[in-house]
């Protein structure tokens, strides 16, 4: 059972109060109709899915009912930080840098 610190409530609460909303910092394209199928599919479905440090979005459904971001290690499950939507993470993994360098289509910046 994870204990997750909700930055809105400023409390450590049990995992079951939260639901997971996937990879964080995915910016919705400003003009979806201007994208190619490749770019749109990339935005909708393709993910980093790292083994290690991951920036992700969580929803405190049985609590303040607000979204926030977390930096979590997907192997050890350690939560390194939680932070507000709009803020930047303090911890950034090497894989993020590596994958961003390979990325074919820009998808907003971290």
């Amino acid at each position, binding site marked *: 059972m994870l204990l997750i610190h909700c930055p809105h409530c400023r409390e450590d609460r049990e995992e*079951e109060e939260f639901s997971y909303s996937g990879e964080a910092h995915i910016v919705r394209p400003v003009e979806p109709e201007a994208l190619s199928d490749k770019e749109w*599919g990339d935005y909708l479905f*393709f*993910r980093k*899915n*790292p083994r290690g440090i991951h920036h992700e979005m969580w929803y405190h459904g049985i609590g303040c009912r607000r979204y926030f971001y977390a930096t*979590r290690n*997907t192997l050890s*499950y350690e939560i390194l930080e939680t932070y507000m939507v709009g803020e930047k993470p303090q911890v950034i993994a090497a894989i993020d840098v590596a994958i961003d360098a390979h990325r074919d289509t820009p998808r907003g910046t971290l």
Partner: protein
Amino acid sequence: MKKYSGFSLLKNALSYHENWQKIWRSPKPKADYDVIIVGGGGHGLATAYYLAKVHGITNVAVIEKGYLGGGNTARNTTIIRSNYLWDEAAQLYDLSLKLWEGLSQELNYNVMFSQRGVLNLGHNLQDMRDIERRVNANRLNGIDGEVVTPERIKEIAPLINISRDCRYPILGASWQPRGGTARHDAVAWGYARGADALGVDLIQETEVTGIRRKNGVVVGVETTKGFIGARKVACVTAGNSGVVAAMAGLRLPVESRPLQALVSEPVKPCLDTVVMSNAVHGYISQSDKGDLVVGAGVDGYNGYGQRGSMHVIEHTLQAICELFPAFSRVRMNRQWGGVVDTTPDACPIISKTSVQGLYFNCGWGTGGFKATPGSGYVFADTVANDHPHPLAEAFDLERFNTGALIDEHGAAGVAH
């Protein structure tokens, strides 16, 4: 390879079973192969076997970081069925089921395939509508199946609770008599033995750490035992597919999550079929050894830790106890978590990639075991011909850009 038979059993008994041939060799990797398969689980070994057997490509290595069949192949609930809704998925899984039906003879290795039937329960009106639709779709595809009443379910699995006085009463089920279970380890071992006998090198305890490319073409893999050259690299790494893809600078529409299974202490025979329920989320069968084999759900978030959340098990066991009140006193013995690669449409990816000579077979999510033979068969064909097998065409990576998804969440997404 010496054939297993009653005669060989008798012959080896005379020397106290001390002179059996080793089931496979443990060769040193060669400098260069035609095809390298990354991942020595069931699907990878099946791919190697069919590459050698059907396509005559025997200069093949399977590279496995642990031991053969030691990952999800060794820790799943062994359920086999093909009652999928959409034509593309139904045909792929039914090819698999047909291969299962002759697999022990084909491999000369007893995979203990038991066609004990699979029940998928419905607990509300919408479940029943979906079940009728799915069974009709199956029958149009030539796949056996029928919609059965609670009374018939009670005949098939007498311990089940069909009372209307419970939170989620059973209203009916789909019944696929050709479905069943098999011995998971035996499948990996059988394919490994078969592939080895045809000349495939099975290289264990060697981790692939990089995929070397030259001008967009694969030239080999970096491993913990040095560089190994290859004209084609086929990745079959389940939960770690995203990690392997990143080695080639690719991303996949895949998210990895732990899926749990658990077994009870052995009890006398009491359940001779497979019972699954999507709505309350539990699935259960009894192994030949007597343990109740229970499948739980995936964790709610991405994870590579081969363990799962306790509340997921709790939820599943609540469902099992409601379906089978008699099992409430059974003690659970062991629990595993395996990392599964889930896709947005709950269907696999069997595909070429933008890197020439690099292929992926992944995204089987929570239900890859049943597909082991078919997956290997169509993937071997795809790799050998550098062109998708007709049954694999719809499972191309491209579908996530064209939008031609095969939405199997109804038949596959939850319970497998």
